[in-house]
C-alpha cells in the first residue's frame, strides 16, 4: 500500500491503496464518492466516466498511480452546480430510468460539450456510443443532446 494524492472536485485527497488500484475503486471505496459507477471494469460501458484534467476518462481502466497530482471531477463535482444545463434538460425530458448509467452519460456529454459547443452528429454518436444503458434511455438522451447543442 502507498499514499497517493489527487485533487478531486477541487479538494486535495490522499488515499492509501495499492498503486494498481483503479481510480474507480479509490473514489468509491476510499473516498466514498459512489456517484461514479462500476459496470464492466473493462472500459466498455462508460458507467465509470469522470473528468481527468477536463477530459472524459474511464476510471475503471486508470490506476491511481497514473493520476497522481491530476485534477479529477466526478458527478458529485459537476452536481455542485445543479443548474448545469445538462441536469436541467435531463429533468425536463425525464431521461433517467433506473439511473445507474446516468452519471456516466452525463459526465461523458459534459466533457464533449465543454470541448466543443456544437459537436457534429458523428462526434456525438462516437462519444455517446461508449456509454451503455440497459434501460434504453438512448432515445431521450438523443433528444436531450439535440436540445443542449441547439441551445449552446
Amino acid at each position: 500500500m502507498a499514499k497517493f494524492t489527487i485533487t478531486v472536485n477541487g479538494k486535495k485527497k490522499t488515499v492509501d491503496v495499492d498503486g494498481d488500484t483503479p481510480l474507480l475503486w479509490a473514489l468509491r471505496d476510499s473516498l466514498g464518492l459512489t456517484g461514479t459507477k462500476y459496470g464492466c471494469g473493462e472500459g466498455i460501458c462508460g458507467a465509470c466516466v469522470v473528468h481527468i484534467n477536463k477530459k472524459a476518462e474511464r476510471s475503471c481502466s486508470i490506476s491511481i498511480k497514473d493520476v497522481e497530482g491530476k485534477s479529477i471531477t466526478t458527478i458529485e463535482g459537476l452536481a455542485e452546480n445543479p443548474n448545469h444545463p445538462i441536469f436541467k434538460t435531463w429533468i425536463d425530458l425525464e431521461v433517467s430510468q433506473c439511473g445507474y448509467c446516468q452519471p456516466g452519460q452525463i459526465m461523458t456529454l459534459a466533457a464533449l460539450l465543454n470541448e466543443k459547443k456544437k459537436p457534429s452528429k458523428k462526434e456525438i454518436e462516437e462519444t455517446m456510443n461508449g456509454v451503455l444503458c440497459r434501460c434504453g434511455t438512448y432515445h431521450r438522451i438523443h433528444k436531450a443532446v439535440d436540445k443542449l447543442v441547439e441551445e449552446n
Partner: protein
Amino acid sequence: MKKQSRREFIKVVSLSGGGLVLAAFIPAESIFAKPGEEPKIFSPNAFLKIDSNGVVTIIVHRSEMGQGVQTSLPMLVAEELEVDWTQIKIEQADADRKYGSQTTGGSTSIRRNYEPLRAAGAAAREMLIAAAAAKWKVQPADCKAENGFVINKLNGKKIGYGKLADDASKLPVPQNVKLKEPKDFKIIGKKIHRLDTPDKIYGKAKFGIDIVIPGMYYAAVKRPPVFGGMVKNFDASKTKLLNGVKEAVKISSGVAVIANSTWAAFKGKEELLVDWDNGLYANFSSEKIKSKMIEKLNGTGEEIRKEGNPELPITNNAQFLEATFEVPFLAHAPMEPMNCVANVKDGKAELWVATQNPQAAQRDIARQLGLKEENVTIHVTLLGGGFGRRLQTDFAVEAAEISKAAGVPVKLTWSREDDIKHGFYRPPSMHKLNGAIDSDGNLIKFEHHVSAPSIFSQRAGRKIEPKEYDIAEAAWPLEYKIPNIKLSGSLVDTHVPLGYWRAVYQTQNPFAVESFIDELAYLAKKDPFEFRRTMLTEDSRLRKVLELAAEKSDWYKKLEAGKGRGIALSEGFGSFCAQVAEVSIKSQNEFKIDRFICAIDCGIVINPDTVEAQIEGAIAFALSAALKGEITIKNGGVAESNFDDYPILTFEEMPKVEVYIAQNSFPVGGVGEVGMAACPPALCNAIFAAAGKRIRKLPVKLN
C-alpha cells in the same frame, strides 16, 4: 444445481396471453393497522404517515428499478388523500408481509395496487375530515379535503392535516370508502416528474452497490465454471499474501474472499486456486440443448389447446406453409451488477439489497442461516435495473453467508463477468409453425408447436401438465379469427439455471407467431396490416391499437427502395400493443432501424410519460436481444463474459421511437413488459419488406 429460490406465489395463467400473474393481493386487514398505535404520527395503514408538522410520507412497497414506482405508487395514494403533490415524501419499505406481495415482477405494481393504494389514501382522508368535523362540531359532509387541508364548506375555515393527525389517529378506520371517479382525478393521468430523478443524476442516489455501513469489509466470490459444480478444495495462500485481504471462506456457491476494498477482493479472487467438482454437466453445450429441442419439435408434442379441426385434411386448392423459428439463451445484464451488504450477528441478519423480491430474500436467508424470519431485516435500495434478474435471491443469500462465516459486515460485489456467467437465463426455444390459406386468401389453419425448457418445471422440480406449460405463454395466435388452430408444446430439460427475463416467453412465442402471420399474409397476397385487421373483431382493443399504429406510421405511404415497414401485435399483462418498424438496408449485411411506432392500450394511465419511457426502454431491451443477444453454453458453463462478447444496443443504434397511448377507461394494464413482444417480429417483418429475406432465427443475421 445452483441453489434457487422458488417463486411459489407465481401461478402461470391463461395461455392466451395473460402473462405471469401474481396470485397475490392485498387483504384489507393487512393494510389497515389498528388506529391509535402511534399517536404523534397518523398512520392509518401501512402505506402512509402524516406527522404533526403536516409532512406526508408515502411508503413504497414495490422496488424502484427504473420503471417509476417510487412516483406512480405515491400518485395513487396522493390522488385520494388530497394532498399537495410537491409536499409529499417517500420512503422505501423494508420486507414486511403487512404490505401484501412486494414482488416486483410480471408488470403488477400498478395493476395490483391501483385500488388498494387509492383506498389507503381515501381512508386517511375520511379520517382527517372526521377529525376536523368533530373539532368544528359539524357533519363530515359539511367538510372537504383539498391540498393537505380540511375545509369547512359552511364558513371556509381550514385546518392543515398536521394539526388533525393526532385526533385522526384515534378514530376508527373506515372501510369501503368510495373512491374517486376517473374524471375527477387531479394527479392520476398527468405527466408527473419522477421523484427519483434528481438524486440519480446528481450521483447522490444510493443503489445497493453504494451502501456503506460501519466496520464493513468487501467481498467477492469465485463460483464453479460448470453449473451444478462444487468446491472440492481450495488454496488461498497466494490470495492471503495480497495487501488488504482478510481471509477466504467457503460458502454454498463457491469461495468468498474478504478484503478491505472491492479491488483487493477482486484481485484476491483471481489468485484463488480452487479444485472443482464439475458435477454431471461439464460436457453440456448449446448445441446439445438445441438438438434436444429439434428432436422434440419433430415429434407431435403435447396438445395444449385446440380450436376447430386442425387435423382434418384441407384440399380445396389451399396453399400451405411451414416454418421453424429459433431464439437463444439470454442474460439480463442489468447495468448494476449483483451486490448486497449484509451484517449477520447474534442470531440476526440485516441486509441492504437491490432486490425485486425482498420477502423471498428474507425467507431464503432465514432458511439458509437457520434464523427466524423476523430476525432477518431486508432494506430495499434502488435497483440499477432488474429485468427479472433481481427476482432471484442468490446474491443476497451469498452475502449473508459470507458475513456469518467471517463474523463481520460485508459488501459483496459481483464482477460483470460473474453476472454474465452466473445468471438465470431466458431459455432458448424452437417453434414449428404450419398454416393454410384457402383459395380466397383466408387463413384457415394455424398450428404452433413450441419446444423449450420450462422455467416453471425447473423450479417446481417436477414434470408439469400441458395446461401448466409456461413455454406456451402468448403462443396462441392472439384473437385472430382462424377456424382451425392447434397449439402444442414439448418440454426440454436443461441444467442451465433459468429465470424470468423481462416478459419471459412473451419475447419468444410472439416472435414466431407474428412473423409467421406476416409470412401467411404474403402467401395470401394481402397487405400484412389488412390481413391482421380483417381477422380481428371491430370492437377488439387489439384491432384499435393496430389501426392506430398503422395510421401513425403512414402505413400506406410508399417508402423508397431499400426501405421497408413491418408490423406486429402483442397482448399481455393486461395491455395491448402494436408496433411498426421501419428499416433501411445499407448493404449485404447491414441495415439500420429508422424508427419504431408503438401504439399501446394499457387502460387507465397513471403517468403517461412513464408509460412512454417504459415502451422506449422495452424496445431498446428487445432490440439488444434481437440484434445481438446470445448466451452460448460451452463445457457446461457460459462462454460469454462481459459487454464485449455479450453486447447490448448502443446510442447510435437506437431508433427513433414514437409512442401513442390509447385513451380509454379500461382496467389498468401493465406497461413494463408489453412493449417487448411485438418488437422483434415488427423488425423482422420490416427486414422482409425491405430486403425480401425472412429472419427466422434471433439474433438477426442478414446473411
